[in-house]
């Protein structure tokens, strides 16, 4: 080794270590910077709008929309007092839309599909939850069995978890009722103190119950085995005017439907604000008093764009 080479090698080693250290620090810093804003990259990409049934009959003030991972899309065509069952595949509606209009269903709003494809609809006029077979045949009203006192209840909304248990937002007795798939009472959770008005309920992939207080703009959660609700957000009025509905995706992100603001607010599982999509308007991609939204595992988003009398389809882009 020529004289001085050893010193140069040592210097090179030191320099390499320093550079490696700097790179490591930079990488860690970048990671720290990126993590909190990872949600900011979530966006809705407009795909299409659904305006009619197969016969060309226009939707009228549609307030409910339910979807699953098997290409099924159920729309509560509220103004026409009917449901429409669409097949949505490859970004488009396939022919063969089924009109479901049982006599027992007068004014359908929120709708859900369970794991067996059965359709549940909340009838606003009757304030009852109607059960239909996957083909749309009337199977009866949901009649809770074995309710503890008080036995009176008035549903404002409902949801179904992945085990097909049914959750009812009972605004009369100020509680959330959990029923088995056949309607037997399982448990209930009292509403938290000091609330404004609860408008909607959903259950995320982990079984966490989420409810939204439209008046105070607060989302509450109750983990699967917990005994009460706790807020996961502060008052969100900075971002949302009147959050009337909510849902969640398979990663636990929460989507608030801002009815008066004509937009969708995305929250992280911990309630952190991740973004706001769309705004009030009439053109495609814009929303006018949206009432319900659903998202499937493919990231397809369906929004009941009520005052625009259509359903809009978006794709979640990350």
């Amino acid at each position, binding site marked *: 080794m020529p004289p001085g080479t050893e010193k140069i090698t040592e210097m090179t080693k030191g320099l390499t270590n320093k550079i490696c250290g700097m790179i490591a620090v930079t990488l860690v810093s970048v990671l720290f910077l990126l993590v909190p804003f990872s949600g900011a990259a979530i966006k809705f990409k407009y795909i299409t709008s659904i*305006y*009619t049934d197969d016969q060309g009959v*226009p*939707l*009228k*003030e549609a307030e409910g929309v339910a979807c699953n991972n098997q290409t099924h899309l159920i729309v509560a065509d509220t*103004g026409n007092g009917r449901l429409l069952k669409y097949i949505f595949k490859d970004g488009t509606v396939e022919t063969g839309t089924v009109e479901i209009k049982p006599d027992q269903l*007068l*004014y359908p709003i929120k709708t859900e599909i369970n794991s067996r494809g059965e359709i549940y609809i909340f009838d*606003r*006029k009757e*304030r009852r939850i109607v059960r239909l077979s996957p083909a749309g045949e009337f199977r009866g009203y949901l009649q809770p069995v074995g309710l503890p006192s008080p036995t009176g209840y*008035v549903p*404002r909304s409902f949801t179904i978890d992945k085990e097909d248990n049914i959750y009812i937002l009972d*605004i*009369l*007795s*100020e509680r959330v009722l959990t029923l088995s798939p056949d309607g037997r009472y399982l448990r209930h959770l009292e509403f938290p103190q000091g609330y*404004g*008005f609860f*408008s909607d309920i959903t259950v995320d992939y982990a079984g966490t119950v989420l409810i939204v207080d*439209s*008046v105070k703009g607060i989302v509450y959660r109750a983990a699967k085995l917990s005994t009460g609700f706790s807020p996961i957000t502060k008052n969100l*009025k900075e971002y949302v*005017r*009147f959050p009337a509905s909510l849902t969640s995706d398979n990663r636990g992100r929460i989507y608030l439907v801002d009815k*008066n*603001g004509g937009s969708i607010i995305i929250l992280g599982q911990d309630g952190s604000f991740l973004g706001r999509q769309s705004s*009030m*308007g*009439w*053109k*495609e991609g814009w929303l006018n*008093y949206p009432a319900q939204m659903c998202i499937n595992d493919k990231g397809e988003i369906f929004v009941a764009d*009520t*005052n*625009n*009398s*259509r359903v809009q389809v978006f794709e979640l882009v990350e």
Partner: protein
Amino acid sequence: MSGYIALFSLCLMGFFILATPPAYSADTFKLKPGARGATCLKCHENFKEILKKGYVHPLLKKGECTGCHVPHTSSHKSLLVADTTKLCYNCHQKVLPEDRRSAHEAVVEGNCTTCHASHGSNNKFILLKSGSELCFDCHKNMSDYLKNVRFKHPSIEKGKGCLNCHNPHASAESDHLLQKKVPALCKECHKTDKLTFKTTHMEYPVVDADCNSCHSPHGSNNRGIVFNVAHADVTKKRCNQCHKEPTSPNALKTKKETTQLCRECHQDMVDQTFNKNRVHWPLVDKVGCLNCHDPHATKEEKLLKGSIVDVCGKCHGDTVELQKWSINNPKNEKLCEPVKKGECTSCHSPHASDNILLFPQQSTGVELCGRCHEWQTHSTHPIGEKIIDPRDKNLTVECISCHKACGTGNNPAMLPFSNTYELCIQCHPERRR
């Protein structure tokens, strides 16, 4: 190195010299006798008159003008040592306790001179006027109300007037600056153990009830100062129409729950309401009718708990905020009258409707707006059931295609856009400049 230490020491000394307030003693400026105030009066002769008044600010009385004024220069008007909104708090901190339940707006804002003369007056506490007269200078509505009302609460005209019940600055006990919570405050004068109290209240155990549930605290046109708008059963003293009998252990409990109870008398109205497609949700929750109505008596028509805009705003604060913003909009000359006046029920049915947004009519535009507006004279723009909205083939062009009926903040003519050009190019993109 020693140089740096010396420099550092100098900086430190400088810091302490600047940071420590000067400890002025009486002799610091070698002031002449009377320099703190008496000397001022040589020029400010009008203060001789003020000093003769019955009540003089203690500093002025002691001749210490420098308690509030700087003798030479100041950044504040009248050579004051601090801004007028902060000056008084230098000595009177306790006026606004931290644990207050309510506070007088003028006090919070530091506008003490709204009520007090700064130097002296003939009224106690150097007030500008005495008794309730002072309060009515600002609270004109109350003054007008009391002039026209048949029965006044006697305490308003006795002794300290308004201050018989209210604190002037703040209250740690109650809302509305009340000295105590109701009914404790009322019970200071009204003896609840008297026979007349019991018979007047039909033997019901209302000793600890909220008196303001029926009685207007200032006065009303009804005997017993029951609020001007009273439930017929209250004025006729038929409490047992809704409540259990006074002899019952739970006498104040109602015979039925909320809406079911109201339906006993208001059957047609309740049945019609519940027969509609869309019942206003609060009607069917635990509180029911009482979300918006008071069961006993109020000052508002239809026993509402407040003005319509206040009652609706309790839940729809976002819309009312927009309405208020629109009212304050300088370009609001075309703002809808019901929006201006906060009359939500001009366009929305408060109980139920068959239509979205609780509109009373199926058409969300022409028919509804046409009740007030002669839309045919509006313009030559095509409008009506046969005109498809180019932005959405399921919509027809109606009034709300271009106007947002609850107000649009700073936009003109209730347009959802900042100007007509932005609105028109939505449907007529070929006209885009």
